[in-house]
């Protein structure tokens, strides 16, 4: 046996290992192979390869593991149960950048499935090493680490707090300032995930000075980065008035509105979400947005897109209108009602319809003028049909009913109320008849019109319990008219007349 032959054996073995691990990594990237791989016991085989002497094999093994864990939570659990995480965490701080990336990928793939798995990662002490990776020279490593941290932090506030306690936030803020777009994107998304849970977490992100850097990137041409930045800002602003004011102070306002015109749907959606989160807190903030022309931009945005992208915009209009009558008037003046009506009619999803109904209710509930503006757009029959429709969800029914009630209680525009008289259920009818009873005593033309359009007849046909509110309203209406007319329109009056004809003794 020569020296050479001996060494050949080793070389063959090494080549075989490399081949195997690369093949597994390749196979793991296709989802149809995963089950077969799992049944073949790939986990047990990959684990020793993580400790291989050759770095390439280690890295590829980590990559394969990451892909497997990425596939579903069972495999991710298998990774956790296989005690692979401590190995990864230990070697994460020592190996080269390729290995670091692969290891961070495994952590990310494991942590994304459930809070329990993410908790397992935290318990391995991975956070500290990941935070150290955030200080790495290589942007790819930073990105992978930031991504893993983001997936851990997104589950709940405890995990998020753990990430913050590991000191990740200042480093993430530094990562935002790096030139690489991908890194910026991931760092912004991680900040968004951290700050979404509680005001305290958002405050820590703000304290690290994230807002100024995030606000600068709103005008970035990269759409995906914009999405993440807007989402982070809205997650920060959603918690309290102070945080929202801090976000506003970064002078985002005319700039954000350009995002509402963006070609990317998600940028639009996140931009609308940001304005909504700011507008919902106080009338002052809403006013600021209105003055900046935000309402017009949001209305255009609603008009130009479909589906869930509309939802935040619709809610933003509702919030603005709910604050005060002037703001509500501003929504009306900005031609906000027609797009809301189209949303109400053409959307298929019940929750979007419900939001549109709610927003319309908020717009119309302040004064008769507001209610008139809403009623003129002919939404009341639509709302009524939604309320009556048995197929619509409970939430939509409740929202439609509330909106109807709010608008009807202020509405004095009788032509819009008339058609509702015919098909409204008693609990809505009460409000409609109430509005008639308030207006008719003071308006002679309306009285005339009410008779000629058949409203009076309809009112006479209503069966109200004596002593109820509805009966009182009906009596008030009846008192506005001469008795003969009321009797003429009462049901059964013709029979009475005929009876009288029968009983009449002709005078000869």
């Amino acid at each position, binding site marked *: 046996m020569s*020296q050479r032959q001996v060494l050949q054996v080793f070389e063959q073995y090494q080549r075989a290992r490399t081949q195997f691990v690369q093949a597994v*990594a390749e196979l793991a990237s296709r989802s149809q192979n995963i089950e077969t791989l799992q049944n073949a016991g790939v986990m047990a085989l990959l684990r020793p390869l993580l400790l291989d002497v050759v770095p*390439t094999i280690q890295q590829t093994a980590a*990559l394969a593991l990451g892909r497997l864990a990425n596939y579903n939570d069972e495999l991710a659990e298998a990774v956790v149960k296989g005690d692979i995480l401590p190995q990864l965490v230990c070697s994460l701080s020592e190996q080269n950048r390729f290995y670091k*990336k692969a290891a961070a990928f495994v952590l990310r793939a494991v942590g994304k499935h459930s809070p329990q798995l993410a908790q397992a990662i935290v318990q391995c002490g991975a956070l500290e090493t990941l935070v150290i990776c955030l200080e790495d020279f290589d942007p790819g490593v930073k990105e992978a680490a930031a991504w893993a941290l983001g997936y851990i932090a997104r589950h709940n506030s405890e995990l998020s707090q753990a990430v913050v306690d590991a000191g990740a936030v200042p480093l993430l803020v530094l990562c935002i300032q790096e030139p690489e777009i991908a890194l910026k994107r991931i760092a912004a998304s991680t900040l968004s995930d951290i700050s979404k849970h509680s005001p305290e977490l958002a405050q820590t992100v703000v304290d690290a000075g994230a807002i100024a850097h995030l606000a600068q990137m709103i005008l970035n041409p990269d759409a995906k980065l914009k999405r993440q930045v807007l989402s982070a800002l809205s997650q920060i602003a959603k918690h309290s008035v102070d945080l929202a004011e801090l976000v506003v102070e970064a002078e985002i306002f005319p700039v954000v509105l350009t995002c509402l*015109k963006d070609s990317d749907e998600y940028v639009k959606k996140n931009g609308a979400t940001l304005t909504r989160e700011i507008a919902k807190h106080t009338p002052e903030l809403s006013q600021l947005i209105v003055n900046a022309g935000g*309402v017009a*931009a949001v209305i255009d945005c609603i008009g130009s897109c479909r589906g869930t992208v509309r939802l935040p915009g619709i809610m933003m209009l509702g919030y603005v209108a709910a604050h005060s009558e002037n703001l509500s008037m*501003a929504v009306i003046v900005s031609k906000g009602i027609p797009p809301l009506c189209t949303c109400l009619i053409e959307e298929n999803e019940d929750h979007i319809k419900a939001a549109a109904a709610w927003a319309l209710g908020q717009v119309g509930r302040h004064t008769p003028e507001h209610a008139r503006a809403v009623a003129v757009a002919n939404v009341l029959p639509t709302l009524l049909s939604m309320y009556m429709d048995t197929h619509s969800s409970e939430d939509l029914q409740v929202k439609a009913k509330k909106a109807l009630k709010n608008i009807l209680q202020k509405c004095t525009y009788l032509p819009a109320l008339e058609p509702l008289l015919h098909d409204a259920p008693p609990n809505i009818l009460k409000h409609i008849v109430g509005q008639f009873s308030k207006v008719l005593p003071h308006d002679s033309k309306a009285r005339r019109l009410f008779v000629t359009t058949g409203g009076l007849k309809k009112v006479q046909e209503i069966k109200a319990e004596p002593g109820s509110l509805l009966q009182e309203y009906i009596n008030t209406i009846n008192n506005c008219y001469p008795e003969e007319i009321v009797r003429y329109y009462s049901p059964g009056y013709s029979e009475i007349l005929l009876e009288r004809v029968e009983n009449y003794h002709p005078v000869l």
Partner: protein
Amino acid sequence: MATLARLQARLPGLREECFRRNRSVDEHRKKEYKAAVKIQSWFRGCRVRAYIRYLNNMIIIIQKWWRGYQGRRYFRKMVETAYFIMKMNFYNEMAVRIQKRWRGYYVRKYTHNYYALKKYLEAISVNNEIVRKELNEYAEMKEKEKKKKDLEKKEKEKEHQARKMHYLLSTEQIAGIYNSPFSKSPDPMELLLRKSKPLSHSQQPAKNHLICELCDWSNCTRSPTFPAAQPLPPIGRQKPQGPFRDTAEVLRQRYKPLEPTLRVAASINSLEKAREEIKREEWRNRVHDNEFLPFSSYHKNEKYDPSIHRSGKYGQETYGVKHFREVQPKKWIADKDFQTVLPSIVLFERFGKTYSRTGQIV
């Protein structure tokens, strides 16, 4: 005496009468007494009653007056209160009127100022129009940019295609497929082919590894470019000597980056560079541009320009240069100095010349 006799005569009768009388008196005494008591009691009763009646009348008078007084007093008070209430009501009414006016005015002016609201809403709609226009412009601009980019990309692709298919260019003798002899003018592709250069084989577009890696890494779709391109580290072909060291250590030693000495690391013209640098530094840091010239011959031709303090339009003054004290010999009466009249002070006379080396007066 006669009388006595008479009396005496009548004595028995008298006695009898006396007795009778006494008896009758005795008989009536009780009756009379009762009558007297009755009379007295009646009288007294009358008197007391009269007195009481009198007192009663007095009391009625007093009470009448008192009640009248009190009634009047109460009435006056009541009138006063009523008057006060009336006034109060009036004042309240007036106050309500004033407050009504004021509140209406205040609210209309500051809180629900209709005109301000109208103006505000108008301003909002104008502002909205502006914002809408701007946003539309912005969107259009974006659209245009995108279109332009797409167009450029297409153009580039076409060009690349043309370069790739350059072999389809027609020659002098044989027409290419784009240059049909039957058509009037050649296909536009032919023109493009004429313009473009053929793609050379030598410069294959090398993939930029770094960029690719960065863009692919975000979703881990591709396996990262590990340094697998370089061959696996050899497992020692040399003749092994003695006990092996740890493979990893050996490999680290073998593939460690070059660590040149300072001498090797420095470039050969570092001295020149440093000089250049120093020169540049000096040039940068100079305060003024007049170079210092060390030779006095340089100043030879220079005219002396006097300081402005010393030069005037009346010529140069000699004061301070030639003399310090004005002397006018023309006004002198005698050439000699004045002789002192007063005896000199002895001590001063001796000043400067009186002390010898030994301190003795000379």
